[in-house]
């Protein structure tokens, strides 16, 4: 890896620039965009912030209720409710676009907690017809459920390298041709003046290298379904399981058992699951995604199980064994108190 700064004009800088631009071409090709329309950032949080800032200026901002916090914290954003399965009703979007003409709509292609897919094709068509812009948070969908979102009519998409096997610290905002982006951080004018600050070249190179890895969606979905059926038989509720979903995600609520307890129990068996969203203290908040889907108290009793690309039958069995032991302990308590 070159040690130069891609903005430097000496030989080491030129070498660095070559790596950077090659990465840009890879990302552009993968996302059906031109290299000039790829803006590297520190990750998807920054890419989302840049989209909200640059595209949302002077426009009402409409967001889905299950979006990531980097979108939900947009000041003044109007939240669109989702249906119990986590999807957005077509009429909800249509009505909001009529009520708020010229809006910027921000939707995630796939939800990070449930894997539920939004119908981006419909959203893009509707936004285009109403003169609205559409930003897609594609963080979870990249590599697992790719679509030509820009081709469908989306204005921009954001992605994050470490979600598909790259290192942490690099992401990108990819925009439709002809869209102007005003920087959040002007700095030294990098990324054609759209994102100041020296690029994290090692992380960006890693991001590009990780794109396009093979992904056996069918096999992974089979394992996921096996886990889900097993847990449902033990009393779990799988949120969003009736909607179109990513192949690797299941969100399992276990009535009466706090998410933290489940997380600790599974962690003790060497299984890393997540739940809700963690504050920097490590404290868990109830899932806003499940809350938006109407799950009430269960939003604090659900864990998110994400299967890695290389999941094995042994790993699935390890999970189901640990889950069954956890449920057994919970049942013993219920009998005890009954």
């Amino acid at each position, binding site marked *: 890896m070159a040690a130069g700064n891609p903005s430097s004009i000496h030989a080491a800088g030129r070498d660095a620039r070559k790596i950077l631009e090659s990465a840009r071409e890879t990302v552009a090709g993968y996302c059906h965009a031109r290299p000039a329309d790829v803006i590297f950032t520190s990750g998807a949080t920054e890419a989302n912030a840049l989209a909200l800032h640059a595209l949302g200026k002077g426009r009402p901002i409409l967001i889905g209720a299950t979006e990531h916090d980097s979108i939900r914290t947009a000041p003044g954003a109007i939240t669109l409710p989702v249906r119990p399965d986590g999807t957005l009703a077509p009429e909800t979007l249509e009505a909001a676009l009529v009520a708020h003409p010229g809006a910027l709509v921000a939707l995630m292609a796939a939800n990070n907690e449930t894997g539920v897919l939004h119908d981006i094709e419909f959203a893009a068509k509707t936004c285009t017809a109403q003169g609205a812009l559409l930003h897609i948070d594609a963080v979870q969908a990249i590599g697992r459920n790719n679509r030509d979102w820009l081709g469908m009519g989306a204005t921009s998409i954001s992605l994050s390298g470490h979600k598909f096997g790259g290192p942490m610290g690099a992401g990108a905002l990819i925009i439709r041709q002809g869209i102007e982006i005003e920087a959040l951080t002007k700095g030294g004018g990098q990324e054609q003046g759209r994102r100041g600050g020296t690029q994290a070249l090692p992380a960006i190179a890693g991001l590009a290298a990780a794109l396009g890895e093979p992904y056996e969606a069918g096999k992974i979905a089979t394992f996921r379904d096996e886990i889900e059926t097993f847990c449902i038989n033990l009393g779990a509720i799988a949120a969003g399981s009736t909607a179109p979903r990513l192949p690797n995600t299941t969100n399992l609520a276990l009535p009466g*058992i*706090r998410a*933290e*307890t*489940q*997380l*600790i*129990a599974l*962690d*003790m068996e060497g299984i890393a699951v997540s739940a809700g969203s963690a*504050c*920097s*203290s*490590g*404290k*868990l*908040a109830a899932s806003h995604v499940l809350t938006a889907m109407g799950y009430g108290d269960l939003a604090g009793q659900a864990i998110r199980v994400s299967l890695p690309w290389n999941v094995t039958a042994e790993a699935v069995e390890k999970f189901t064994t640990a889950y069954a*032991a*956890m449920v057994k*302990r*919970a049942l013993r*308590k219920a009998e005890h108190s009954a």
Partner: protein
Amino acid sequence: MKIAVAMSGGVDSSVVAGLMARAGHEVIGITLQLYDHGAATARKGACCAGQDIYDAKRVADRLGIAHYVVDSEARFKKSVMSAFADSYAAGETPVPCIACNQHLKFGDLLEMARDFGAEAMATGHYVRRIDGPNGAEMHQAVDENRDQSWFLFATTRAQLDFCRFPLGGYASKAEVRAVALEMGLAVAEKADSQDICFVPSGSYAGIVEKFRPDALESGEVVAEDGRVLGAHQGIARYTIGQAKRLPDAAAHMVVKKIEPGTRRIVVGPRGTQSKIVTLRDVNWLVEPREIRATAKLRARDTLHPAAITPNGTGATLTLDEPALAAPGQAAVFYDGTRILGGGFII
């Protein structure tokens, strides 16, 4: 065995985690987040977690044990802070640490530890658990100055059975700090925590005002015969036996009674104390029966010999000599170093 350790981020519970790890147990450190530190200190941009959570995490890192932060804010607000204010509004003098031990540490956390598969739970309390012929017994700590048994009387026998208190046998806090130092724990020199953790300034009126502003409304200070002697700025500022904050006309008198309904503070001369003390929500660590024991009516109190008669979920205490008993405080029964039970003074 798998043992959960309640870690506050202070030196005591940090040493407990270290002792359990050193003994070869699989230690699962848990820190309860009791309130939003950022909101409590009203600093803009401050994280919800305070220094204590950070310290607990670093101790766990140092010891190489698992550590989790558990959100207990809603429970703490309801069962401790709000109950604290309600108790003052009812004319009582509450002990929030007892409520916290009862509902959060030995209630929710202990249940959680059972649920995630722990076989025991250890805490940094200064009290001893001794296996007796009829199960686990609770005894005062060896270090009388540190003894916390009065605050733990509400621990049930089933809970006690599941608990370990490794610090109860230490002769002094200095010894515990020395162990922390020897383990290389950064908290070895950390200052002891203050009286009420959620009242960092030491003024609890702010909490009462937030939950029960009615308890800070002014009212009359009256003599036992009903004569009005002056005014007060809220019943929450008074406790039975208090001599401070009374009007000049009530100089040399003490609070005898607090009447929440009329917001009246009744004062009278010192000395006329009662022999009969009625208790509610009594927890027995022995089979409930009529007993003779010594009782502590406040955290730092001398022992009062008494006869104790169970009465439903409550009990009646007949003291040999009259003593001051403030409603809301606890009366805890001892036989030597052993805790037999206790209840809340009505």
